[in-house]
């Protein structure tokens, strides 16, 4: 259930001096860290930059004990991503995104469907932006596939409280979402 943190725990704690360990950790977590960041910022280039930044920080000042590494990594990622989410204006990268889609697929996207998807993403992010940081981060981490234990380590809360916090965050999300949809 906590695959990621188990792998980390088995890793050498002297990360900075161990090239192979750093690379192992990177390769194991890259996709998931990117997934967390992409959900928060919604832009491929920005999510990649922040992913790089996260691992850079890992290399630069890794926590002293490998035990906390998984939590540390996702804590840094969610902070970076959440700050970027907060800082982002309601950008309209729609044209760029549509253009990229056309380039990467043979057929152009169905415009109506695309518009709907964009609006949905914008609405969900707006809701996250309005939520309390910890609740928004909790939802993103959970929906990026992290286990309770990993989420607890990332957010610095007790694993036994995640269920309560999650239920509360979902309630809050739904309330704000309904409001956003109505408004």
């Amino acid at each position, binding site marked *: 259930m906590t695959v990621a943190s188990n792998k980390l725990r088995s890793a050498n704690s002297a990360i900075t001096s161990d090239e192979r360990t750093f690379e192992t950790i990177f390769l194991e977590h890259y996709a998931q860290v990117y997934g967390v960041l992409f959900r928060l910022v919604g832009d*491929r280039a920005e999510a990649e930059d922040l992913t790089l930044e996260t691992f850079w920080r890992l*290399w*630069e000042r890794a926590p002293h004990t490998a035990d906390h590494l998984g939590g540390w990594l996702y804590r840094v990622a969610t902070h970076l991503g959440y700050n970027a989410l907060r800082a*982002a204006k309601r950008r309209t990268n729609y044209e760029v995104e549509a253009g990229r889609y056309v380039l990467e697929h043979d057929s152009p996207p169905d415009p109506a469907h695309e518009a709907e998807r964009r609006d949905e993403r914008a609405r969900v992010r707006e809701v996250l932006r309005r939520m309390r940081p910890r609740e928004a981060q909790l939802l993103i981490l959970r929906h990026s596939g992290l286990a309770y234990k990993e989420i607890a380590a990332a957010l610095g809360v007790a694993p036994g409280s*995640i269920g309560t916090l999650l239920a509360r965050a*979902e309630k809050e999300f739904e309330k704000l979402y309904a409001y956003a949809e109505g408004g």
Partner: protein
Amino acid sequence: MHLTDQGLRAYLDDELTAPEQNRVAEHLTACPACRTRREALEARAARVSAQLASLAPRPSEAPRSAQIVLTKLNRLRQTSASGQEKLTMFKSILAPRLRPLWAGLAALALFVSAFSFAPIRAWAGEFLGLFRVKQIAVLPIDTTRLGEFGGDSTLEKQFAQLFSDSMTVTHEPGQPQVVSSVAEASQLAGFTVRAWSESPAPPQITVQDGAAFEFVVNRGRAQALLDESGRSDLQLPASLDGAKIEVNIPAGVSLAYGDCPKPEAEAEGEGSFGRRMINCTILAEIPSPTVNAPPDIDLAQLAEIGLQFTGMSQTQAQAFSQTVDWTSTLVVPIPRNGASYEQVSVDGVTGNLIRRPTDDAPQYALLWVKDGIIYAIGGLSNNAETALAIANSLK
């Protein structure tokens, strides 16, 4: 006793231990109230999950391959480990405590040590600095020649020594001060500070105290150093000897937007400077420094000498010199091979956008002058759109 939200929610995610899962399941068969709650929690979790699913990256939004990114990361790490080689050019403009490029040029004698070919900059600063800035010209220079010269550290020290011997600081700059508002910065700096009106978050504002110094030119020593550096063909005019030059640099303000390192963190982790600045954009503003010099000094002539010293031929130096009004133009030297520049329309005037493209830490600086204030925006990126957006929405 009924089930808690904690127990129910964790049960739905299969996050309880096996005995706990069983216990909750048993309770649910026996308790209609908890079943109702479970259904409500489950339905809500499913709805929220469906909504959040829209944020997941689609195939076209997948990241580049881990191996490519890892290679890039390793290169960054190696660069960092082997010492800070890049960023020298815009470091001044990007530094949180903002050692401004313009002040750097005008007050070179104070700040030269950061540059590998410091003495040349110092010369340029002295000779090109007799002005009140109204415009900016970018001058690509051949750094290979400067590199040769910069390697001679004895000469470099002598130049530095000459400047320190000739210079008297008349106003020591105080420590930079962090202020909480644009109004406070304006009051402290003594001019109307403009800020990015569309900024998503308030900037970190620092006021850098002004400085003033004067120096008296010792033509004999300066010429001796020119001779020693193999440029006895460059003759300083006799009228220069004993000329007193007064430089006054007003207080300036820097506004840091985005994820910028705190000023006190500047010294820490020097090697990773670029990475720490990656989401940071710095806007710097300073009223034009003023330089007073005796009226009989021929600025164009001195400028030509300075330009030749940086490696230009006499013809090139003359040609460039004639395009510039030396009493009002701040000349910004950039490495010919490492950087490019273009003129852009910005803030209602013409500005210069300088770029230094590199794989790992591309940099740009946007410079312009408006109403007697010099503006500079620096960042680490290939695209300077943020800088232009900021520049065009200053209020």
